[in-house]
């Protein structure tokens, strides 16, 4: 069984937390904190297994994690799961995210936590591995997205327009417009 799946960045900010056993919110935060402290002090070239922290699990539990650029993906599992299998599962999870978000980066996870949850739900259900075949996972996600699109089309059009405007972030864009360096431009004008 998988007890918890945590994703946080290099500074310990949670990006996704999924507990398959109930913990109150403050406890969840403590677990994330502790796990981050355990994981973050390890070099990249050491093994990916850790005997569990004190808050979550116990002797039977292991932390299995992978570190991708700015993000840590940590699975807390018991002895019924294969260690290498879970490592592969993390890989499948990240590759699926990469396919869904097209070159996934931390920002995608920050702004679309809900979507990440939906993707994770197609891999793991109630702490048990549901599906490991990536094409199968992707088709399921696609079909559900289609369902959403059909519904959303009419209702949310205005809201989307607003958010599109908000997204434009006009003042910043004005700042970002690069004008050619004038003196240089003048110099370049050769008669």
């Amino acid at each position: 069984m998988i007890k918890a799946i945590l994703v946080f960045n290099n500074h310990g900010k949670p990006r996704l937390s999924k507990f398959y056993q109930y913990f109150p919110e403050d406890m969840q935060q403590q677990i994330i904190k502790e796990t981050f402290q355990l994981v973050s002090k390890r070099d990249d070239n050491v093994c990916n297994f850790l005997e569990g922290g004190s808050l979550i699990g116990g002797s039977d539990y292991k932390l299995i994690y992978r570190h991708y650029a700015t993000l840590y993906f940590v699975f807390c599992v018991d002895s019924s799961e294969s260690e290498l299998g879970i490592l592969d599962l993390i890989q499948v999870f990240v590759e699926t995210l990469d396919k869904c978000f097209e070159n996934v980066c931390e920002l995608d996870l920050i702004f679309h936590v809900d979507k990440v949850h939906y993707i994770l739900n197609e891999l793991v259900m109630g702490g048990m591995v549901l599906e490991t075949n990536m094409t199968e996972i992707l088709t399921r996600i696609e079909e559900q997205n289609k369902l959403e699109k059909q519904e959303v089309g009419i209702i949310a059009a205005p809201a989307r327009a607003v958010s599109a405007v908000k997204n434009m972030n006009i003042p910043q864009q004005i700042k970002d417009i690069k004008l050619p360096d004038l003196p240089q431009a003048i110099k370049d004008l050769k008669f």
Partner: protein
Amino acid sequence: MALKKVKCNIERMFDKSLTDLVRGIRNNKENEAKYISQCMEDIKLELRQDNLSVKSNAIAKLTYLQMLGYDISWAGFNIIEVMSSSKFTLKRIGYLAASQSFHCDSELLMLTTNMIRKELNSQNQYEAGLALTSLSCYVSTDLARDLSNDILTLLSSTKPYIRKKAVLMMYKVFLKYPEALRPAFPRLKEKLEDPDPGVQSAAVNVVCELARKNPKNYLSLAPVFFKLMTTSTNNWMLIKIIKLFGALTPLEPRLGKKLIEPLTNLIHSTSAMSLLYECINTVIAVLISISSGMPNHAASIQLCVQKLRILIEDSDQNLKYLGLLAMSKILKTHPKSVQAHKDLVLQCLEDKDESIRLRALDLLYGMVSKKNLMEIVKKLMVHMDKAEGTIYRDELLSKIILICSQNNYQFITNFEWYVTVLVDLAQMEFGSKQGHVISSQLMDVSVRVEAIRPFAVSEMADLLNYYTLNSQFMVMQEVLYAAAYLCGEFSIHLKDPEKVLKLMLSYKPLPQHIEAVFIHNILKLFAHIMEKYELEEQYDEILNLCDLIMNKLQDSLKSIELEVQERSSTCMTIVEIVKEEIELKKQNANKQIIDSDEMDPIKKEKDAGNTLAADLLQLFQGELNPVAPKAQKKVPIPEDLDLDSWINEPIEESESESDAEITENIFVNSERNGGDNKEKYKEPTEEDLRKNREARKHEQLHNPHYLKGNNSFDEDSEKIENIPITDLELNIPLKVPGQKRSDKYLKTKEDKKHKKKSRKKKHKSESSSDENVEAAPTVRREFDMPEGATLSDSDSSRGNENDPHKALNIELDIPSMNDYNEEQKQSADEYKKKKFKKKTEKERKPKKSDKYKKIKNVPPKDGMLVSLDEDLNSKTMEVNDEIIEEKKEIVKEEKKLKKHKKDKKEKKKDKETKTKSKKSTSDYEEPLGISTPSKEFLPVQ
């Protein structure tokens, strides 16, 4: 209507979306809490609106805030509202929020039963799937009971997506509602052979989880799994099956024998490391379960060890780690085959990865022998110097001690060396708990190994010397506990006791338990020194010491700690008495010298035998024995001790007592009690006291709790004489800077090899079985134990009562009948009703117990009520008993009916497995699928 919609939409334009919230939080890093509390207010406003899409937006934001640690349980009702939306998009948001924030004790879950049932039966597979996924996170006992049938029907859905999820969901249902397991089990079994590989894999997963906790109920499935294992190509499933077999083999050795061959085939053929590793693990489990009677099992072990060696030598740290982990499993049963790879393990100790070093340390335990112990410990000591981080250091320390002390110091040939190692260790930095470990180890060695005491005591004296001389403290304080104790207890072995006493007297403020030991042992030392001086009649020296001690103790008398205060005041008084007596003696001696130069030699001898010091020493006499760890538990409970009976008879509350009597009691009570008291507490006469004392002495004689000083001491002293003492070559250890003192024993060991022949002659009686190894001093192995108890008695293991898997321990081989099911349902319904009754009673119960307390003190006024309550209780008890009996009868009948069939079936199964195993070896396919864990880094910006 349309207008209203448009209006709503326009209003929505100004609501914050989830993206806005996230952006806002990122922009307000300085006052995040304030910003979020503001957002919370907005969300609360949004939740009050009628529009569901507004609500869903608010809930989506709440889900995000939940991740940041905010409690959102207050919005539970709104979440359910959003879940009930007809739009998939909104529903999704609601179910996600539910799965993140609900838990099985939420009272709100009652409201969701029908909604989820509707969802499960939905035509759209994704809606049903959504409900299943969400439900799996918070299913409660009630939900499990009410929905189990709906989920069961989903098992035969036409869509594999639903079947897959329903199978996994069933496991969660079983955990909460174990009664569902029996009717569902045949269906689950069918799913093991589902045409869809995903469903199959899910079913295997569920059975594995079930079998992990109660393996014996699933042995009958072994043939199915065996077939799956030899035909499947899905690595995920194979891993699960192989793990499952690992759990089953200890119960059925025949299964293990059959497994060996296909598993070794897999080991040879597979390219997937994860599968290879699990195969090795299960082969190890099989080999452990059938430790004898296998012709070629040495070959299998060899194969495992070889493959593990390849894993450990791999550059991938993960494989290395797992390889060591599996190695340690083999170590338990086949230490010899692992010992061959000692080089590898030692190499792993040098690894830069801490987890790997820790695993290698575990293995080291089985690697040591008398010959290599010193070398290995020396290596570990070098590591200790280099190691950063206290966790690893602490682990190293405890491993060194574990390795050396295992099996009553079996591998230690030179205890001097071991004591120096411990002293070296004492001068390093550790976590707070480690000092205690070293100090108890020092005491243990010195108490149990007689021969080492002189050396240990001199080392301890040196330690005390360091401690007092250096202002900067090099030694762990806890070790001083051992130092003080050993110097005091074995003061006979001290070379210069007076110096040590002075060292001990110059202690600085210490933790209370250490300071107390210091004071106590100062007294012991003092008694020892005094004995010498008194015989030599150097009374002035004694008086000086008395003053010294009393001066020091003045400070300790003022200590805040009670223990220290008490000890020091006791010590003070004793020293004061001694001082007075000695002064008297001194005067007498002076007088005698003046009076007459001729002394009566007989009288003098009398005095010598009757010295004050001898009296004082008597306080500390007696041999100390190590006490076995379980000794206290083994003390038999006396026959006449009945812990259940009342010590004071409780006031009776029988129904026969009439109200009149009760009311009478109220008034008479106090007088009566007074009268009783007078009668009871008569002054005991002299004779009574004597009788009591005799009885007590007699009891003590037969009571194992009491230490019987004289008898045991005599026996021990006899034993001590029998123990051969090895000659110690005491060249006083010199401290060479930069080199561990313990290192020199490695050299002396080599020297000794040359001398061995001569030494052997000396100690012929002791020649040990290990020929190359010099004889070690004897270690006392006996423990103080109460009569009739043995060490080997194991504690009965107590299972965790809260474990949900306990309830799942259902014998599934007994086939379920339809009639039985119906009856069960009925009885279950009845049971529910009664449960409800009981519940209402439970609510009353606390009141009753309150009353009960009052009754104990005050004569019962409301006896009627109490009896009523009791009546109710006994009735429900009866009813429950009836139900249980009914059930038992049903099961009995069934067993009789089905016994014949079962027997036949089993025979059939056996035949099947035999034929299958023959087939399987031939049509085995090489599995494809998961590769070894890849290490690519995704392009992340």
